[in-house]
């Protein structure tokens, strides 16, 4: 997993609420047996019209907005447990998702792929979305070490599990950790 320490970038606003993992990556693209190529199909049915042409009304196709930070509406990532959603977002180039609420399984999947789900208050999210829409070149600074988010509409701090923060900033994953617990696991199994 890639390390994540600090990031300064512009952001893409997507205020829709309850964006489910079927929108992030539709089921018909889940047939691959590796993690490659999902980025091409992220938000597929919103990015392209039914006849296959580009949907110019969708924000990812609006050249005004660029960046590796996605700012999305409440309850992002609900629905299916498919980690393909996290692979698709990472594959497209996103490194941070800011929302006022994340679904559980998606949040875990994102963290396991070096994609930072960053939760802010709904008031702050509203202000930030408006600012990006009015001023697409506005820069956002994410500092995982300090757990801070700096923007032109204010600075806030965010929460992250201490263990997950260590994993993200060092590029460790849970498998390494669990294997280090082998003896304890064996003792637990022996007592079953």
């Amino acid at each position, binding site marked *: 997993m890639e390390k994540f320490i600090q990031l300064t970038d512009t952001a893409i606003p997507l*205020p*829709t*609420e*309850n964006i*489910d993992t*079927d*929108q992030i990556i*539709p*089921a*018909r693209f*889940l*047939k*691959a*047996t*590796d*993690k490659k190529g999902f980025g091409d199909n992220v938000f597929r*049915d919103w990015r392209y019209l*039914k006849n296959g042409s580009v949907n110019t009304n969708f924000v990812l196709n609006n050249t005004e907005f660029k960046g590796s930070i996605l700012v999305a*509406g*409440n*309850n992002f990532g*609900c*629905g*299916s*447990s*498919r*980690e*393909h959603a*996290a692979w698709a977002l990472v594959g497209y180039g996103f490194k941070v998702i800011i929302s006022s*609420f*994340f*679904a*559980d*399984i998606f949040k*875990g*999947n994102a963290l*396991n*792929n070096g994609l930072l789900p960053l939760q802010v208050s709904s008031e702050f999210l509203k202000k930030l979305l408006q600012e990006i829409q009015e001023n697409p070149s506005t820069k956002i600074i994410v500092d995982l070490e300090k757990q801070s988010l700096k923007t032109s509409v204010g600075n806030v701090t965010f929460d992250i*599990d*201490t*263990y*997950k923060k260590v994993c993200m900033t060092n590029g460790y*994953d*849970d*498998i390494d*950790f*669990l*294997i280090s*617990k*082998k003896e*304890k*696991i064996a003792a*637990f*199994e022996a007592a079953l």
Partner: protein
Amino acid sequence: MGKTLFDKVWDAHVVDTVKNGPQVLYIDKHLIHEVTSPQAFNELEERKIPVARPDKIVATADHNTPTINQHLPIKDKLSRLQLEQLTKNCKKNNITLYGLGHENNGIVHVIAPELGITQPGMTMVCGDSHTSTHGAFGTIAFGIGTSQVAQVFASQCLLIEKPKSLRVNVNGKLKKGVLPKDVILYIIAKLGTNSGTGYFCEYAGNVFEEMSMEGRMTVCNMSIEMGARGGMIAPDETTFKYVKGKEFASKGDEFDKKVAYWKTLPTDDGAVFDKEYSFDAADIEPMLTYGTNPGMGIKITEKIPLNTDDSFQKSLAYMNFKAGETLIGKSINYVFLGSCTNSRIEDFRIAANYVKGKQKATNVHAWLVPGSQRVAKQIQEEGLDTIFTQAGFKLREPGCSACLAMNDDKIPEGEYCVSTSNRNFEGRQGQGARTILASPLMAVATAVHGKIIDITKH
């Protein structure tokens, strides 16, 4: 202070606790399928880590399988390769696989309970969010991502923070025509799609106590649709009777010993939940969804509510519905009876009982998809297939089918489908398809009438 059912099962599986962090939770059963496992196998292979406990893993092929002509080679190349990959991975790692055509094959959340793999007091995971189904047995069961599938392969454990606790009580007498599916759709419509996020939910009250195991599975299945990682119902005589005699259940004294332990699991009097809700069973009616998330549900007699919120408006536009409209009388061309929510024998009995002596409407394409080979066999043994055939219906072969439309079972663009599945997201059943979630009874009634009817008046 008393302990909850969830606390008792969770605490019995904690191997270790990270300071200010997650816990190491031991997993009793790991279910896998073709879609969310290949990358996890690759990960282990690349890192040269062996699968720790292949004997605790059971595999099936369900998400990406055809529901007609299963005996023929799969036409779609990518689907075929994905299934071949599962077979190879299971063989290499000594994992039991109930592949396509096997007598135990079927939807992962249908086969594990019917084979007795699912038992009270266990911890179970699967790379599928509807793993919550198994909570019907008083099991901690939840969906995980593929990185976590790899973690469980490597260690038989999961690194996870303990969720908070939530209890939903439903007491009273259910009205005629109200099924377990209506109960859970009602709860989700009342509480919303993210009310349970961060929580594990226990369903309590006489309504759940009086339900069959099939009904309890339908309820627990949709826990994730209100955001909860899992749902549980306390094990009782109904549970023990269901598990007894199943292929993978213990026998004789061993079974009695287990039952004695399972009897200690229900939530203690005085146990406190982080959040609690109570509903009156008499307020529940047959339910339908009108939008693009499972929380957008109304009673059959209600009209689509008015809401000026952008996301709500976008959702109604997708469905081509208007605020203030009733769904009664809407012409419907597609009906799907199936999925891990409603594809068990009880669902087909309800459906057969309704269609007996009636005829499917000519405008309706109805897909009846049993959850497993065993359910399909039982349908035949009970003579339900004859009833369906006489009423103009045809049964398909087991699989996830049009619930997620990964295979060819796709609802055409712009068409409505009254579906017994669990998600009405945009495009879930096919690009541009419009899903209306409902009970098996509402689904077959729609198929017979060619439009949505108020079942309580029939």
